């Protein structure tokens, strides 16, 4: 579904991604790990079309479409979703209004009529249960005053509502206690199917105990320098990144 070829990107003239190659197929879970500042979050920002970043080379195909040519909203409609590392608070915009607008914009994109109020609320109820999100939170402004854990659960709730084909979880485990981590992970696993895929960006093995990856990639200095099976995550947990850094730096 996703084919990234030699993707290069910069922010304010600073080159961050220096040639990423990655292919994701339906049903797969990919973990992207790597030390701080290696470009993990940049990759998710570029894939979702954050205007702060400039693509300087390479291509990304999503179900055969040129993803980089699409606006962020159309990428979402086509089935791409990003769970933010730092979800944004939007005072004055209620969760209900936010989700209804998002859903109806997607339906409009596919030529469907807007969801009725009753159907929409029913859907909200169903999906809220997946991440045990309190009804009170759903009636408040988007992320405003939410705790760290509530924000992350809210991200997965939105993912459940929008039913993406490819979800990128950007450090969804950061700032979560063990209980919240379990809830979020079980939410992600509930939503998993043979037709959708997940890219998990994380520093730690911990999340991967709950969301089992098929592939683990190490991102360093803007490139994927190592790819292997889930055993690589365990090895990294034990040995850290230094041995990979040394290996890569000596090659250069």
């Amino acid at each position, binding site marked *: 579904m996703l084919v990234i070829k030699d993707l290069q990107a910069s922010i304010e003239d600073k080159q961050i991604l220096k040639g990423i190659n990655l292919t994701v197929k339906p049903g797969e879970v990919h973990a992207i790990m790597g030390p701080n500042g290696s470009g993990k979050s940049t990759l998710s920002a570029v894939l979702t079309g954050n205007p702060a970043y400039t693509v300087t080379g390479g291509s990304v195909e999503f179900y055969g479409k040129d993803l980089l040519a699409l606006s*962020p*909203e159309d990428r979402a409609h086509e089935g791409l979703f990003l769970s933010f590392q730092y979800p944004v*608070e939007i005072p*004055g915009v209620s969760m209900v209004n936010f989700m209804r607008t998002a859903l109806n*914009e997607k339906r409009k*994109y596919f030529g469907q009529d807007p969801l009725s109020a009753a159907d929409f609320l029913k859907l909200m109820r169903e999906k809220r249960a997946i991440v045990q999100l309190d009804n009170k939170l759903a009636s408040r402004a988007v992320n405003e005053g939410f705790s760290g854990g509530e924000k992350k659960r809210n991200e997965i709730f939105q993912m459940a509502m929008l039913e993406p084909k490819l979800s990128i979880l950007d450090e969804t485990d950061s700032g979560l206690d063990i209980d919240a981590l379990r809830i979020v992970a079980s939410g992600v696993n509930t939503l998993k199917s043979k037709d959708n895929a997940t890219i998990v960006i994380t520093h730690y093995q911990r999340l991967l105990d709950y969301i089992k990856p098929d592939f683990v990639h190490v991102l360093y200095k803007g490139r994927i320098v190592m790819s292997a099976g889930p055993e690589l995550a365990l090895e990294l947990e034990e040995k850290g990144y230094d041995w990979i850094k040394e290996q890569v730096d000596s090659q250069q």
Partner: protein
Amino acid sequence: MNALKQYIDLFDESREIIEEQSPAILNTLRSSAREHLETARLPRKGSEDYEATDLEAVFAHDYGVNVNRLPFDADPSETFHCDVPNMSTCLYYTSNDAFHSSATAERNIGQVVVEPFSMAAVDYPELMEAYYGKLARMSDPTVALNSLLVQDGLLIYVPDGIVAERPIQLVNIFNAALDMMVQRRLLIVVGKNASIKLLACDHTQSADYRYLNNQVVEIVAMQGSTLDLYDMEESTPLTSRVSSIYVNQHEGSNVLIDGITLTNGFTRNNYHVEVNGEHAETHLLGMTIASGEQHVDSHTFISHNAPRCHSNEMFKYVLNDHAVGAFAGKILVQPGCPRVEAYQGNRNLCGAPTARMYTKPQLEIYTDDVMCSHGSAIGQLDEEALFYMRTRGIGIDEARRLLMQAFVADVIDGVRLDALKDRLHYLVEKRFAGTLSNCATCAAACRPSTKD
């Protein structure tokens, strides 16, 4: 050049006709107004308190003045149905400069007095004498001009202890087929422990003519009274409005004034509040949504002349395209007024680099032991929030609209009439969506369609 001269000349030529057709009480101020105007000049852009606004240019146009009181419109209530859903009001109209009551005025079962000055001068001469022209200041040339030329106006009087069951709605319409200036004048007297909610809407039926509403509103809020005034403008790019609202608050009175501009051409709103009794409460709110070439300037002055009073002021502007907004607010706490709480805020959103906002918050405090604050901010839409919404599939235009709506939401939530609050949320949504046009219930095309 002196834009006032044409109107002074007109007055000198037509004084007799003007005075013949006016209740005598209105004629008592004309000589004084004429004197003030002899040396007065309208402020030009850049002068004190008019940093962004050129009044001289607004009045310089050759407007018609209906000196002879020719009738324009048989009955506006047949054409205009400015309903607020789920809100039962007593509806009155001002068509250009003439007053009409509607069938729904009968709901106002004889408690609250709503009468043109011509009638009020006969029915309530002591009220008119006691309050007409007592608050408004002739030192403002626009007030002097209003007092010079005004021929009628409206008295709204709530006798002591009366709590008005229904809100009074006053729909002001321009529908003359010529360029025209009118002097609208309101006198509102809310008796002791009386209470009323008032909704005033300014509309313009024709977008082809230039209109100028030079209005003066005087409000007396007696001991323990409550007054809500929602003053909403939905006019056209060729419509100008200069409005001066003067308020005198007595002990324990509670006054809320909310000035809302959705569409207009040029607007200057002056608010002058004298808080003269202890434990009085003042809420001054403003919301402006402007695009195209709209110009909206609010000038507020709250003088705390008594201890233990509370004022709360919040003005919000959303400006797009080449719109210009201005806000200057001053809170004055006079000597010997401890325990006053006064807060002023002005928050502005510039949605386009070509939009301009001028702001000047001021506090002047001559008493210890008070709590006062003022703050002003001008910003743009939050890029991070926009991107977040777009990743959820909300298009950039829709995302901008949601954020702009959210920005003004708390001002709308300050409205103390639930049905009007809902209506305002709806109107603002339509305004941002660019689909604010004719009311569904109304046959007259008094709202222009505007788009951001």
